[in-house]
């Protein structure tokens, strides 16, 4: 069961705005993720029930698209761009450095849940490659040193965006 709170109210509004259309499933999942941060099974069950869709269909859609997160992300999120330009400019070296420095694997979080490391599809800032996103800040022409420093700052400051 989904808890009756503000967030549920917001979600209900979104469902209504979309006329409870099956075809709006992606839009609804986008909004649901915006509201709740990620899509847990409770939330997906609720969406499935309201849209009168089979739960397996909703789960299938939610896991097909990599933008949807089914697990709660860490307090701080670092995302590496896997665009070609970033690859050519050796984003891989920076990602490995982050993994080693903070003991986190891409796609996962640190054991204390403070930091998650993801890869994203090209963010389109290719001319500034390589790009690393720390919380909501895009670091262009990124270097190992700058990125590690920025992450440490975020972790110490605890100032989440």
């Amino acid at each position, binding site marked *: 069961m989904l808890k009756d709170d503000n967030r549920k109210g917001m979600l209900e509004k979104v469902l209504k705005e979309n006329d409870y259309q099956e075809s709006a499933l992606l839009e609804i999942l986008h909004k649901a993720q915006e509201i709740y941060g990620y899509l847990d099974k409770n939330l997906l069950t609720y969406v499935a029930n309201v849209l009168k869709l089979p739960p397996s269909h909703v789960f299938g859609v939610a896991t*097909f698209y990599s*933008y949807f997160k089914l697990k709660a992300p860490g307090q701080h999120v670092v995302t590496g761009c896997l665009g070609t330009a970033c*690859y050519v400019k050796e984003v891989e070296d920076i990602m490995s450095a982050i993994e080693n420095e903070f003991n986190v694997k891409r796609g996962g979080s640190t054991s204390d849940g403070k930091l998650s490391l993801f890869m*994203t599809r090209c963010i389109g*800032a290719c001319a500034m*490659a390589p790009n690393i996103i720390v919380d909501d800040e895009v670091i262009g022409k990124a270097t190992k040193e700058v990125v590690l420093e920025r992450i440490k700052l975020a972790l110490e400051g605890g100032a989440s965006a």
Partner: protein
Amino acid sequence: MKPADIQKIAEHEVDFQRAYKHRINVCTSSGCVPFGALKVLKAFEEAVKEFGVEKECKVARTGCVGTCSVGPAVIIEPGDYLYQSVTPEKVREIVRDHIVLGLPMKENLYSNEAFFTKQQRIVLKNAGKIDPHRVEDYIAMGGYSALVKCITRMTPQGVIEEVKDSGLRGRGGAGFPTGQKWSLVARAHGSPKYIVANLDEGDPGVFANRTLAEADPHSIIEGMVIAAYAVGAEKGYIYIRAEYPLAIQTLKLALEQARVLTLLGDNILETGLKFNIELRFGAGAFVAGEETAILASVEGRRANPRPRPPYPANSGLWGKPTLIQNVETLANIPNIVHYGGEWFAKYGTPRCTGTKCFSLTGKINNPGLIEVPMGITLREVVFDIGGGIPDGRKFKAVLVGGPSGGCLPETLLDLPIDYEALTRVGAIMGSGGIVVIDDQSCMVDTAKFFTDFCVEESCGRCNPCRAGLARVKEIFDGITKGEGKMEDITTLEKSSGYIKEASLCGLGQTAPNPVVTTLRYFREEYVEHVVEKKCRAGRCFKNLNSEANKQ
């Protein structure tokens, strides 16, 4: 609103803009915002007030001019002075010297003339010039006049003929003749008919469509409405990547403006034409750019492509006739209607008319977004517009067409860029990604990178793409770890051929291109990896070496 009112808005806006002696265009697109473009914009607004020139100097936000590596970029008109890497601190000086004293600051200007001289801007003609948040700016540049021309003076069939005359081909990659596609949809039975504008620019290293949406959203909308008129569609969807928040915001605003001016709606410009547009958001699936997959996604399902026929022109969204076009194709339409198909066909080559936008990135001096006439050579793009390879390194290859494009060697640099020529050498036009790589990159590792990408993005429906690519990836893993055998090269070739021919959709059919082209043009590097366990770029065997070092 009546058709004639568009002209009135244009005239009014032109008068309004003429009142200003100068116009400062600050690029606030996704490329420049992370580097402080919004602060620069604010600094200009304050500076013109401080110097008391706000009555003669208009400060505007614009879309991308293309010089993305030296952002934030600012253009001061008249004269098109392009300032590069502007910081808020520098703004005061620029306003004082350039606007107040009339002395452009030469040392801060973008100096690479060649970046622009070889370009031909049709789709991007307004990019960096107009404020994408103001529909009046677009109308003042002649925007929506093509739509007015269509609905007041042309028949739907006439519009299709004009598009046919232009020779325009789909800019999404495959290059299907646009006019012919429109005919198919116009003739198809079933209603309502739909239009889907594809803005799911999934190719890594490509940002042309995003730039277009951020810089000139109304050109896409106008193109869609004209297409709707021509094919008889009532409803349109713009399918855009969720990773493009600024483009989404810009488009949302533009759609709202178009609705207010009745350029969209149930009775467009009081002519009885009905056409509405909704946005649909992608969610991180490269395959959703494929035309049948995009349909599934718009319908709210997993973006699995399906076998064709039936083609979307006959059976698309919810089984109804559907026109699917890339947004760059659509943004060409107002120009074609306005200036005529014949005018458009003068650009490019006879077989591939017009221009194409390319995202030029990688190891290159002037990365950015460019629009060039079809038929331009790769050498001109890389060395003239792109300014060659930085740090005195040596050119090695150019990747054309995104993750399923081809890696072309120096000997093919004089190849003219058109659909057929690229296909012949194993590359594709794709959505226009050109990535330059120098001798620091390993071609085996590069092919592996693209294979990894396609493995991750494969939808899993068909066997060759799902299982075949996964096996190819494993073989690459082995080769780059030092476990390669000569048979592996044969297996790569065999599997690539199978995946190309047997896959269900374009993703699988083109995914082996990087493997095939690197095997064709850089085979010696594979042999080195397998036989000598040597990587000339020093990218592979890393773990191997570090383990060896430990011992």
